[in-house]
């Protein structure tokens, strides 16, 4: 891009910030249509049980209760699920996790709805819960679904790992135990339903893809698509956790049955019990490298606990497999993975989407190998970093811009890494008496993250762009805004491309009734996909302006550009003319559809991706060896998102990603005991606070332009989180000489590990070195 950018990469303010700081923005949980009924859902208290009967008589007698619905009231297909529809809208025969819905109560008040829900009598026959994924895979395990308990499995080989290990100077083998993680968006799942002015059954809620919500609602209600409208624009956080159906079908069902508007807001307990989570995963890695630091072999096995239903468990496992070797070149690979049904809650999409689990594994291994051959961990990573033209772990060619090496080099030049020797010793802020007991360490991790849905899945993005006679622009794109700043990014891109000030741009999003299908708001794809679609739309708009100018003003053929100003003008082959004069009263609308480019090879199940974003994180930790307390003191994020669209938004995403990475490393785990969830609110599921996240987070944009991206941009919304966790684990080994392989690493684990490490303790090494 030769021309200097006017808008992009600057500290642009969010379009919605003012409405959010005044409390004026209306979220799904704030909506309240006139004459609405409140809903409450009856959920299974059992992780696994047969439903013998549901008696609604007492509930129907509760004053204020208007309607109680059970499985037999679902008029269409009583099932939902993004990939496979294996979850009942309301369970009629069997419940498979604590939180599974059995009935919905509609009442005149929330109190009456809850009283009604408490009065629904469900006769359960509890069944033995299936809680161990390894055991669940065996043929003698009770099957949770007709096809058995293995939802999905994948196996890939490249080269010959046995040969790779024979050639290796060092072979490292470890098993990592990664917990289930809750998204913990601050707004729980919520929404309202009603018949709109065209008589469409409308659900205004919190989904991440309104067009798919529309399909899922219509299927369950047995209605044609055009009779259903789904809305979901401004939402209080999602992170993948609102990708699957949550409240939508229950809302639609009750409006369908009562004819009245309805409202449903999940309690935090319900939200944690019911919604999808990050897969708890057992990860086994064996990796080998040469004496001079060439990565030679990666062998891995993933067993992901997908919980009760499919949702996106298959695709999440696929991304684990695809990212098994991280952003590194390796000749020999063998990877096996299983996504397994159990009665432990329900897993699905979550920021990182499987890359997270693979990244903890491979990045821990990379550090262990670097340590064993006494090589600098960043130098070791750089030596093996993938380049364009290399063959990736699953044996396809890396075709587009690969930013792995650039982010590693950026980290090497960063303040934290360059000053590492001094940083480790800097205990000035620690009281003198404690200093002998406080250890500091630095760790690094690199990461790549597939962008978009991968090959074989429809991945298109349609937008509509309207230009009014006064020079105001409206972009209609159905993606949602849950905090990432997407709508502001769209406005900034439009302002950059057309000569339109940002304040004259309006974004209409998340509504099947108003905006064309722009695809899912997931997979780090929206800025890239909508950006490309809007660029196509802008080109069409200019062609249309030129055509109109030729037709109405007699200009020679050719496109005409917009020129901003108090009275916007168009400029083209015939000179300049007032926009208002050219358009008259009628706004000009164009549409465009962009298809995310895909790889040339197809490995099945959406694999592989063509596009990836890259990142390298450096984390500095301080550990009090007396209490076991870990504090993350500093993080540097070197992120390759190509051209930065919004500088403040880029940093903000990164800083939020750091906090979530800290949570995954040190705090968070959804815990179960025989399928029963023990952590159902924020008093037991503990999140990082302002005291747990360092103020010293530095985000460095590493601009490796993606040739297919809008201005060379790609997404960073996942890369910014995934590498943080292993960087912290690597920093802990640097500080303590202890390798933690089980998350989260809490103070108790630190104290236990230090006790084992002490003389007489039983710390074991599992690194084999040739000749030793």
């Amino acid at each position: 891009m030769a021309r200097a950018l006017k808008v992009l990469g600057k500290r642009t303010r969010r379009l919605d910030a003012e409405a959010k700081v005044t409390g004026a923005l209306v979220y799904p949980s704030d909506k309240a249509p006139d004459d609405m009924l409140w809903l409450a859902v009856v959920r299974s208290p059992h992780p696994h049980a047969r439903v013998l009967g549901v008696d609604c008589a007492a509930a129907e007698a509760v004053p204020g209760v208007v309607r109680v619905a059970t499985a037999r009231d679902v008029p269409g297909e009583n099932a939902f699920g993004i990939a496979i529809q294996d979850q009942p809208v309301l369970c009629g025969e069997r419940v498979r996790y604590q939180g599974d819905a059995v009935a919905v109560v509609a009442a005149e008040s929330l109190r009456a709805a809850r009283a009604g829900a408490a009065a629904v009598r469900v006769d359960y026959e509890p069944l033995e819960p299936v809680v161990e994924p390894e055991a669940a895979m065996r043929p003698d395990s009770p099957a949770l679904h007709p096809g058995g308990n293995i939802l999905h499995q994948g196996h890939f080989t490249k080269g010959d790992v046995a040969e790779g290990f024979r050639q290796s100077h060092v072979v490292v083998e470890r098993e990592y135990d990664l917990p289930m993680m809750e998204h913990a968006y601050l707004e729980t799942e919520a929404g309202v339903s009603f018949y709109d002015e065209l008589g469409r059954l409308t659900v205004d809620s919190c989904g991440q893809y309104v067009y798919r919500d529309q399909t899922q609602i219509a299927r369950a209600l047995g209605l044609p698509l055009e009779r259903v409208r789904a809305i979901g624009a401004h939402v209080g956080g999602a992170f993948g956790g609102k990708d699957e159906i949550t409240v939508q079908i229950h809302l639609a069902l009750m409006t369908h049955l009562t004819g009245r508007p309805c409202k449903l807001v999940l309690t935090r307990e319900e939200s944690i019990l019911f919604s999808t989570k990050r897969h708890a995963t057992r990860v086994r890695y064996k990796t080998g490298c040469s004496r001079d630091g060439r990565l030679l072999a990666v062998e891995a096995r993933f067993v992901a606990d997908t919980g009760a239903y499919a949702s996106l468990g298959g695709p999440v496992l696929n991304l684990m497999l695809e990212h098994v070797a991280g952003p590194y070149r390796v000749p020999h690979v063998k990877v096996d993975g299983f996504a397994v049904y159990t009665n432990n809650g329900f897993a699905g999409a979550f920021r990182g989407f499987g890359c997270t689990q693979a990244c903890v594994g491979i990045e821990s291994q990379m550090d262990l190998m670097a340590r064993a051959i006494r090589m600098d961990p960043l130098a070791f990573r750089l030596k093996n970093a993938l380049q364009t033209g290399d063959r990736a772990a699953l044996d396809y060619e890396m075709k587009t811009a690969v930013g792995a090496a650039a982010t590693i080099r950026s980290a090497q030049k960063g303040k934290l890494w360059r000053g590492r020797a001094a940083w480790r010793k800097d205990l000035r802020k620690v009281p003198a008496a404690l200093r002998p007991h406080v250890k500091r360490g630095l760790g690094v991790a690199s990461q790549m993250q597939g962008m978009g849905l991968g090959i074989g899945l429809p991945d298109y993005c349609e937008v509509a762009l309207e230009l009014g006679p006064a020079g105001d622009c409206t972009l209609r794109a159905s993606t949602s805004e849950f905090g990432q700043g997407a709508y502001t990014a769209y406005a900034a891109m439009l302002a950059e491309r057309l000569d339109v000030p940002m304040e004259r741009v309006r974004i209409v999003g998340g509504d099947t009734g108003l905006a064309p299908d722009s695809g899912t708001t997931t997979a780090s794809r929206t800025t890239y996909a909508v950006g490309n679609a809007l660029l196509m739309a802008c080109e069409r708009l200019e062609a249309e302006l030129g055509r109109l100018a030729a037709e109405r003003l007699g200009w020679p053929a050719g496109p005409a550009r917009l020129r901003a100003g108090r009275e916007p003008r168009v400029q083209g082959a015939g000179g300049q003319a007032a926009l208002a004069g050219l358009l008259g009263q009628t706004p000009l609308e164009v549409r465009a559809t962009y298809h995310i480019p895909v790889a040339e090879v197809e490995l099945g199940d959406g694999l592989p991706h063509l596009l990836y974003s890259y990142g390298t994180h450096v984390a500095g930790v301080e550990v009090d060896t007396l209490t076991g307390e870990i504090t993350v003191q500093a993080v540097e994020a070197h992120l390759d998102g190509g051209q930065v669209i919004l500088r403040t938004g880029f940093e903000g995403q990164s800083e939020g990603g750091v906090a979530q990475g800290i949570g995954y490393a040190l705090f968070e785990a959804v815990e179960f005991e025989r399928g029963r969830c023990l952590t159902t609110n924020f008093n037991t599921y503990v999140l990082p606070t302002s005291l747990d996240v360092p103020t010293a987070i530095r985000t460095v944009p590493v601009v490796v332009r993606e040739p297919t991206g809008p201005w060379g941009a790609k997404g960073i919304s996942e890369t910014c989180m995934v590498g943080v966790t292993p960087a912290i684990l690597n920093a802990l080994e640097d500080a303590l000489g202890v390798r933690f392989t089980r998350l989260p690493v809490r103070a108790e684990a630190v104290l236990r590990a230090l006790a084992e490490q002490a003389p007489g303790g039983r710390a074991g090494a599992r690194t084999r070195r040739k000749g030793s």
Partner: protein
Amino acid sequence: MAVSVNLKLNGAACRFEVEPDERLVETVREKAGLTGTKLGCGVGECGACSVLLDGKLVCACLVLAAQADGCEVFTVEGLAPGGRLSDLQRAFVEEGAVQCGYCTPGMLMAAEALLRRHKRPTGEQIRQGLAGNLCRCTGYTKIVAAVRKVAKRRAARGGRR
């Protein structure tokens, strides 16, 4: 049995008929229609429902409406009377302290309370003052920066806004 409760809500005298077990957050959101105050967890852990009750920062999910009888309740809607943003709100906008925004109203109330407590807060005091409010999007960095900016500005003006 409903109970009558008198509140001075963002400066205006209001009267509500409430249930004996009704929490202040319900009254504010459902009866007064002030949905700027959010409900995030219902157990006083997330701070999304933070309001000032007679000048004291509280979780409105942990206070019964009846307990607030005769009290002054100050919510996010009270920060910008007449639509003019307060210095804190402006700083949140300028610094990019807002992402999904669901924690923002509570965060603003906590920030307001801490700035009333500490005229010249240290970084540590700011982080302490916000530690009862969870944010899942921002990593807190820009929120802390926004509060620091306001603290400096107010100090420079001798405590005036």
